[in-house]
């Protein structure tokens, strides 16, 4: 009996999903061919095989979708009672839960994320968001946002590729609960679960036009954002695109929320629960291949324990299983696109060139598909690119500090401010740190926890506005003082 525990492959069956050869735009409850006649191919990043082709919506298609959303808003959804709206949203939540395996499998195929994450995190939390906001639909006046909040109208939403279904839920659920109708543009590399969601809307008998899904790339998104009859724009994605959107919306009457990049500090003090801190570091940066805007991509560790933490981290990283996203034992899946892989490769090369020390565990990466081994850089300085720029990949930069004040100064010394983590057994220090960190979310002795009841959003170049919780409703309601 050889002392080796090699886990045999445990692949999740893909037979639960039925992927069509091509998909059209979902407008007014029906699928419409794009007026451009153009389609783009969406591939499985783990194999580079084409999964399907998806319509590219242009200005005319977006206009149709916005008109449908406006009609649905004025005739049906905007005047429906909150209790009635809640029934539909609850129905969507239930259907998502019932069809969760189908959604999880499709998400992993299209995105490259491990099935255990789409199965245990993405889809359950997406469903939970619909359940949560369904509960608010008939209680808007009790949300603490004024006595008679009203819906905004037609909402244009553009979401990223890292959590396709979860970001859809974060955007669509509060918008519908508040009484708005929606035109949603999913990311061009991960449109399939949004299109399956169109099927859920029909199964839930949601009135036509309440949710419209327009696929395509940047131009399609720009058409959604700049459409004159859109009342509110919500965007999650890169800071560069966010800035462009802010510029295009400026001067219009549209309201805007932006959830952009991050370069979060995960701060470990010398009295931290060390094994759990190492888990938190791993979860903070290697969860979803590091394709997480709030990823703990900068580890700030107190100098006195830096060596020990790094050594424990490396040992832990050696147990990470990288490979087939459909295998239930995979911890780190595929990078979502070649473009993203190139960016990660370029930034890590810069890290080495700047003098940081690079380390990855031994792991055999599949030959086809887009892969990047979990990587940690030590000897990193604040002035290095890898400490400043968002890498959006499984790459961790380790910096050290000596005092709490220095930790705060380094953590805040970034253009971003989305999240932060604190690891210490001292409660008073947690509170002091949380007060001084410029980040929308501060986790203590945990990292990357998401819950529909808890608001999420950023400071500085990480954007503005909050999603989740009561605060998330405010972003989709006009309250007293608004005009």
């Amino acid at each position, binding site marked *: 009996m050889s002392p080796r525990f*090699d886990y*045999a492959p445990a692949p999740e069956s893909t037979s639960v999903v039925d992927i069509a050869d091509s998909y059209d735009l979902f407008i007014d409850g029906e699928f419409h061919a794009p007026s451009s006649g153009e389609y783009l191919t969406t591939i499985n990043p783990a194999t580079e095989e084409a999964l399907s082709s998806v319509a590219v919506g242009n200005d005319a298609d977006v206009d149709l979708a916005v008109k449908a959303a406006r009609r649905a808003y004025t005739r049906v959804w905007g005047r429906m009672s909150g209790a009635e709206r809640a029934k539909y949203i609850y129905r969507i939540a239930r259907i998502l839960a019932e069809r969760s395996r189908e959604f999880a499998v499709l998400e992993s195929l299209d995105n490259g994320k491990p099935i255990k994450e789409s199965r245990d995190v993405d889809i359950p939390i997406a469903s939970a968001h619909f359940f949560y906001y369904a509960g608010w639909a008939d209680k808007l006046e009790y949300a603490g946002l004024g006595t008679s909040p009203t819906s905004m109208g037609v909402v244009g939403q553009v979401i990223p590729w890292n959590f396709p279904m979860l970001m859809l839920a974060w955007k669509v659920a509060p918008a519908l609960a508040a009484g708005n109708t929606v035109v949603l543009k999913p990311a061009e590399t991960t449109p399939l679960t949004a299109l399956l969601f169109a099927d859920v809307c029909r199964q839930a008998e949601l009135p036509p036009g309440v949710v419209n899904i327009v696929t395509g790339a940047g131009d399609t998104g720009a058409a959604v954002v700049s459409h004159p009859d859109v009342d509110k724009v919500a965007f999650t994605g890169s800071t560069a695109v966010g800035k462009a959107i802010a510029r295009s919306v400026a001067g219009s009457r549209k309201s805007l929320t932006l959830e952009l990049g991050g370069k979060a500090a995960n701060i470990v003090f010398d009295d931290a629960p060390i094994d759990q801190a190492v888990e938190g570091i791993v979860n903070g940066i290697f969860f979803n291949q590091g394709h997480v805007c709030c990823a703990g991509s900068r580890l700030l560790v107190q100098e006195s324990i830096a060596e020990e933490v790094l050594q424990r981290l490396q040992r832990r990283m050696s147990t990470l299983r990288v490979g087939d996203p459909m295998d239930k034992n995979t911890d780190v899946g595929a990078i979502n696109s070649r473009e993203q892989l190139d960016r990660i490769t370029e930034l890590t090369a810069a890290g080495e060139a700047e003098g940081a020390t690079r380390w990855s565990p031994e792991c055999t990466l599949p030959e086809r598909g887009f892969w990047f081994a979990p990587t940690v850089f030590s000897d990193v300085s604040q002035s290095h690119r890898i400490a400043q720029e968002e890498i959006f990949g499984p790459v961790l930069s380790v910096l050290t500090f000596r005092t709490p004040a220095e930790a705060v100064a380094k953590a805040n010394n970034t253009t971003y401010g989305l999240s932060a983590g604190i690891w210490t057994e001292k409660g008073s220090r947690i509170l002091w740190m949380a007060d001084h960190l410029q980040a929308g979310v501060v986790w203590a002795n945990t990292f990357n926890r998401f819950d529909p009841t808890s608001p999420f959003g950023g400071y500085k170049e990480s954007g503005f506005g909050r999603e989740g919780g009561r605060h998330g409703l405010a972003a989709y309601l006009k309250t007293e003082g608004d005009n």
Partner: protein
Amino acid sequence: MSATTATARARELLGVSSLTNRALTGWLHGLPGVDQVGADARAAALGTRSIKTSSKAWAIDLAISMIDLTTLEGADTVGKVRSLCAKAAQPDLRFPDTPRVAAVCVYNDMVGIAKEALEGTDINVAAVSTAFPSGRASMKVKLLDTKDAVDAGADEIDMVIDRGAFLSGDYRKVFDEIVAVKAACERPEGQENAHLKVIMETGELVTYDNVRRASWLSMLAGADFIKTSTGKIQPAATLPVTMLMLEAVRDWRELTGDMVGVKPAGGIKTTKDAMKYLVTVNEVAGEDWLDPDWFRFGASSLLGDLQLQRQKLTTGVYTGTNDVTID
């Protein structure tokens, strides 16, 4: 290891001239804390590994070979112990390639019976001593109890710590007792000493910080194995607690170079549970511990389920509980 050597080594590790209770407290309380929420989450994540086909077959055989097949009832009879020994040596008549278990674990007075029944096999006899399960007796009695089992031929001694002393902060007392029992496990030159497993009764220690401290204290005092539970107290073995102990033995080896074994006991009944524990051993302590010398399951009914799953893998047919012998 004599009491003097043990204390000298402990003084050296702690860097103190005298092994006072204060010194021990400082050392144990200086260990990193355990965040319960995080530890539970990590253990739950380890429990989701999917073990299939060839890995499962390998792991089932490994798990069987790690069992301390146990009967610890007031109602134990000579006949029952003999049956258990027969089962230990020949778990599955129909599948003779089934591995044998590591040890049979009995009360002190049954050691002789078990030794006799297992003669000619390489299966060890483990005895629970030191006024098991409560440990509420004088040191004189605990040592006599241990000596009795060692003299009767026990290969392994499962002792209980004084949880009252531990919880009141009298770490030195716990240390001294373990050292003394360890000394009582010694045999004359040329004969192998009995191995000492230290039962911490983690269900009574309650907090994870206590589990970590008790693990380190036991190792410092010379435990060959650290064991979760007597099986008489709930909760008995849990995956998070076992994980913490595996972290402790892993870190102890980093510090001293010595390996210490881990034995979860009580409540592990199914193959599925056993697989979770093996995954945890593999990913937390490392594959060096995937060996009956370094990891044991204290269990009475686990073997039956492992056999059923083994039969299923071999024949493709899931049979019923009557296809394995009950003892």
